């Protein structure tokens, strides 16, 4: 078989396989091809972890969102060696895991819930069931009580109902005020609170609401923030006489919106109870899911489920969001180098740079890179005057680049620019090598050549970034990773491209035959 025929066959096979699987998923399983075609849903994973040290029965109770009772909400629990039941008898739904004698050591239990984006998960009022709740004052005394009274009276004077009272009260409590009453109250709570869990503001807020005759209790929410795993944030639920409402004490004048927070636990009581285990905690990971719930249920029974990243735990899925984009970055590099003919420093360095850019605003990403490379080059020339060996010199460069990054983060934090703090993703070793190679080219071929190459790298990185940022491309890569086979086919084809590079049209622009 000639190499050409082999290539053609491979390319055709790859394209057929890639598009075939994707079409099957689309037509049979109903996974939408285009992003945003159908309503999206949120997937929240609660990961309970704890440690067992003695052979004894363990019971874990995790409070669930009120909506978990609803049949239309997709939910599943993952646990190895634990019995699992959904307890809906008590007020509020709970996931209960239990085991007679689990193995000693760390354990992790998962609960996943998936709900449509439209679903009301915010803090809107739910009707108070049963007898009208009665507030139970916390029993403050002396000067502390007096201070609390003062704050309550002032809030009441400024408000007309429970909602506005809540707002004014918490605005006062959270104000960075040095007023006597505030200080007194805060000091009191700081003294008694360090043993109890919960945010100071939340505890103070609940107590003062109760004192004012408004029933209040602790609630927990999960921020719909896909960037990193998080702990539940404490919220306050209060009753205005007829309904219970939830608000974030840190932003008392904003009502909770179901597109940025999911109220996970309301109705008082603990979020997590673990009997027989130590060091328990619950961590939430949020993923935006673009497949509707119904489709998801069908997909789950299909053998092709494995071909989506959705088969992985949510915390791993978040990593793969970027991993599946790397081939696209490599594809961009192939095009820009072999067809356009841009010079870059290091073949795939721009892809890593582009990944770093994805995590921060592009402008500050480029500024960051330029400053680090410029400063690194300066230090590199300083280092070269000491005549070090190559590897120690690059290692010294890594240290300097790292320190520079720390300094820049601190500086930008001080200046109020927060995006830059995501710098950990900057490929520092690669940047150190970039600096090393750049300084060599600088010395050997002049600064023009060095700057050209570094500019080429940044340009390629920006193009790769722009491609990787397109929502449709992110969606396709995540839900149809088999389409990467088509990218592979395209890369193979370019591998056989023997035509001119665009840069050569420029290079040979003055070509004249003798």
């Amino acid at each position, binding site marked *: 078989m000639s190499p050409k025929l082999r290539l053609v066959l491979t390319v055709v096979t790859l394209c057929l396989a890639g598009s075939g699987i994707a079409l099957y998923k689309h037509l049979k399983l109903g996974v939408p091809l285009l992003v945003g075609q159908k309503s999206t849903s949120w997937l929240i994973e609660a990961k309970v972890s704890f440690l067992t040290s003695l052979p004894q029965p363990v019971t874990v109770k995790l409070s669930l969102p009120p909506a978990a009772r609803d049949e239309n909400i997709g939910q599943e629990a993952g646990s190895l060696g634990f019995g699992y039941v959904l307890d809906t008898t008590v007020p509020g739904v709970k996931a209960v895991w239990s085991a007679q004698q689990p193995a000693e050591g760390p354990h992790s239990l998962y609960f996943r819930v998936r709900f449509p984006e439209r679903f009301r998960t915010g803090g809107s009022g739910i009707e108070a069931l049963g007898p009208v709740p009665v507030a139970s004052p916390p029993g403050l005394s002396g000067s502390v009580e007096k201070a609390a009274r003062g704050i309550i009276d002032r809030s009441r004077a400024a408000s007309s109902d429970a909602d506005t009272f809540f707002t004014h009260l918490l605005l006062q409590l959270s104000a960075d005020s040095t007023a006597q009453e505030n200080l007194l109250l805060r000091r009191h709570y700081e003294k008694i609170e360090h043993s109890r869990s919960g945010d100071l503001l939340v505890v103070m807020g609940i107590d003062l609401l109760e004192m004012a005759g408004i029933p209040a209790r602790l609630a927990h929410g999960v921020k719909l923030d896909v960037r990193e795993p998080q702990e539940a944030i404490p919220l306050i639920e209060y009753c205005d006489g007829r309904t219970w409402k939830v608000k974030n004490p840190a932003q008392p004048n904003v009502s909770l919106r179901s597109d940025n927070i999911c109220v996970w636990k309301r109705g008082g009581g603990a979020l997590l109870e673990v009997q027989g285990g130590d060091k328990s905690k619950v961590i939430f990971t949020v993923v935006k899911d673009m497949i509707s719930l119904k489709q998801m249920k069908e997909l789950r029974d299909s053998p092709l489920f494995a071909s989506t990243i959705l088969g992985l735990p949510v915390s791993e899925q978040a990593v793969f969001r970027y991993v599946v984009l790397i081939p696209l970055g490599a594809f961009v590099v192939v095009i820009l180098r*072999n067809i356009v*003919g841009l010079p870059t420093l290091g073949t795939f360095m721009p892809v890593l740079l582009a990944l770093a850019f994805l995590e921060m605003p592009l402008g500050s990403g480029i500024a960051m890179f330029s400053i680090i490379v410029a400063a690194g080059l300066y230090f590199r020339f300083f280092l070269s005057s000491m*005549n070090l*060996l*190559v590897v120690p010199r690059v290692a010294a460069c890594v240290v300097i680049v790292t320190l520079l990054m720390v300094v820049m983060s601190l500086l930008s934090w001080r200046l109020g620019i927060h995006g830059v703090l995501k710098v950990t993703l900057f490929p520092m070793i690669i940047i150190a090598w970039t600096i090393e190679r750049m300084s*060599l080219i600088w010395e*050997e*071929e*002049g600064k023009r050549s060095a700057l050209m190459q570094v500019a080429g790298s940044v340009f390629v990185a920006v193009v790769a970034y722009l491609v990787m940022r397109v929502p449709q491309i992110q969606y396709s890569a995540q839900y149809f990773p088999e389409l990467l086979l088509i990218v592979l086919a395209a890369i193979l084809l370019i591998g*056989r*491209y*023997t*035509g*001119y*590079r665009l840069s*050569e*049209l*420029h*290079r*040979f*622009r*003055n*070509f*004249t*035959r*003798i």
Partner: protein
Amino acid sequence: MLTPRELRSMGVLGINMRNARYLSPNNPRRYYQRVDDKILTKELAKANGLAVPESFLILESPHEVRTLVENLSRHDSFVIKPARGSGGRGVLVVDHCDRGFFVKPSGARLSGEDLRNHASNILAGLQSLGGNRDCAMVEYRVTTAEAFRGISFQGAPDIRIVLLHGYPVLAMLRAATSESDGRANLHQGALGVGIDLATGVTTRAVHRGKIIVRHPDLDAPLEGLQVPEWDKILEIAGTCYDMTGMGYLGVDLMVDETRGPLMIEVNARPGLAIQMACGIGLQPRLEAALARRNERPGESARERLDFCRLHFASNAP
């Protein structure tokens, strides 16, 4: 700007085509060592009876660097270069010594310490192809031949001949300028002067992609110069093919005042700038060489050269 079609009609070779059609299929991976390691190339050349610049020293370990200056005391002029360098990287030319200082052709003065640093950078692999550890070579510096005096700026020009399976297809002379800082790299501003394969007479010169007739620094005419001992030069190039086994090859030579043509190094990835210098596209000639090889496999070196001098002359049809 020319369209791809126009470039193709003139036979200009692009880098993708060079790699895919001429470089990868004709240069066996296992022979790369022979051209990438200049010490090995030189040994091969000597074994094949080729004249090369004499090696004064080969430095392999840091302790040899310490005694570098003492060991060089007998020599007034020399070249230090990495055994595995490419594109002229790390080449340091010392023109003469002056009261303990080493003077470069540009007039820059280096101390013994500078020289040792340069050598230890080479050993550390700074200029080598893959950044691996390397050896440094100290060798004879070519004295410019009479014929090239007029166009020698800070050193003798070198001759590059590109061959495919022993058939020379293009030849050029590279001459340094003040802009190229004494280096012979075309993209740094050196001159590329096309040579007629048949006669060894220069045909035209190019500076930064534009045709020029006189050396920008020395004002000497660049066209119509006869390269001395052209037959010998072509012969050396042909032998380089036989001894390395590399199909697609660039051979670099220099002509010494007293020793005649010397083989300097062999390059398995010769660049495309030679097309600009000669005003001739590589592709038709490479194809003609391939066709000839298929037609008459196993031609002798003599026959190959005769074929090229006949068919690749400037005034050939």
